[in-house]
């Protein structure tokens, strides 16, 4: 069963965002890690980088293939999770906690309106796994 914590926002490409005031933490969902399989490499933006909703945030590689990670919310990167860069398998074991990817300062908090909340994403993910 796909794990979907309450209180997060999600993209259709299976990234999550946790908003706290004007700061957000971004990551990839349990659904995504399960689809990707064993994660072996992550490429993430450096602190100071400006990122834009819907644009590539970085690259995630599994044994099978390389995929883009997309940016859930626009802003400036404050911090990159070096632990997950060093141990990409954390994405498989702890996608919502230890494997957060970046923390950003939001440039437009209203962008959350373009995302799904946890409840809507639960329905969405169920449909996705149906085919």
């Amino acid at each position, binding site marked *: 069963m796909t794990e979907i914590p309450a209180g997060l926002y999600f993209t259709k490409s299976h990234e999550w965002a946790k908003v706290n005031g004007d700061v957000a933490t971004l990551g990839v969902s349990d659904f995504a890690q399960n689809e990707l399989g064993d994660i*072996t490499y992550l490429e993430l933006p450096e602190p100071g980088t400006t990122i834009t909703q819907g644009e590539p945030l970085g690259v995630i590689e599994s044994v099978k*293939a*390389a995929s883009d990670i997309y940016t859930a919310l626009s802003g400036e990167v404050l911090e990159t999770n070096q632990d997950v860069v060093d141990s990409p398998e954390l994405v498989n074991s702890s996608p919502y906690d230890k494997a957060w990817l970046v923390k950003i300062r939001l440039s437009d908090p209203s962008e959350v309106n373009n995302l799904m909340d946890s409840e809507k994403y639960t329905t969405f993910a169920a449909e996705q796994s149906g085919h």
Partner: protein
Amino acid sequence: MPEPKQTPLAARHEELGGRMVDFAGWYMPVQFTGIIDEHNTVRTKAGLFDLGHMGQVDVRGKDALAFLQYVTTNDVSTLNPGQAQYAMLLLPTGCPIDDIIVYRRPAGDGFFVVVNASNAERDIAWMQQKAAERSDFEVSVEDVSPVTGMFAIQGPLAEAILQRITEADLSQVEYFSAIETTVDQVPCMVARTGYTGEDGFEVYCPIEQVQTLWDKVLEVGQADGLRPIGLGARDTLRLEAKMALYGNELSEEITPLEVGLSWAVKLDKGDFIGRDALVKQKTEGITRRLVGFKMVERGGVPRSHYDVQVDGKTVGFVTSGTSSPTLGQNIGLALIDKSYAGVGKPLQIMIRGKAVGAEQIRTPFYKRAE
């Protein structure tokens, strides 16, 4: 897109939690528990592979041997009953349309050829066409894929597990040899062959028995850790063992001499399709070589068709690459200009537009302890 074909084991894979994908027109499991876990299972215990998507061909008749000498690269005349050999079917250009295993049937009654799923239809049509063109050959080429079940058990515990339900003494079966015996009372051909770099067997049985046999083998091997293995781990296992994959190391743009497969090409055995082109290439000089490398800089996993550079100049391309579960490193095979080849020499792999440092290393990347 037509619906992918299913092996008799498709429902089993779903029950066992397999993630199913369309592979070469077949509905197959890419993984069960995860590629790394399955890979390690095969390296340390044993794994079970559904190979029902592969093609099988019976070649019989008075001139079966002469026909196979003509359409394959290896010297079929060296095969005793029950022996097998790796070979290729070549185009007149010297480039392969597939790599294959040729068995001389254990009873001596003809030959049995196993071809890749992705090329099966074309291979079989090709062989039948060549048989028809050469009316001097009295030979029949019959597609027996629809009636042949095939699975593999691979890994250090494969022999012990399979022996429990096999009538014949498997310790007497040599590498690249096959016997006719019964497995769980079912008549089978059991060959000590595989595509993982481990010891193990490929089993051919009547297709209507393959589901029962699969269940039985899993049952008798369960306590030893035998698990079903998907195509994802099959690829990482074969790559560590430097076994070629058609579409990667082999294609219609690559000759066997360039990728280190000259051992399976017997230019002195007499005429065969593609021979002239290879003799010409050998005379003129082979300019490319298949090399193994490991990444020495961070920057990602090398993948098939990425460019390979040396000092900013493109010298070739990656044929296969992965994160090696056994080595814990990113590795790959590349077909490069021969003058840049050499163990210890540097390469740069172009990953998403960036040149990432790699070093050529000895292959195979993995060799099991004898």
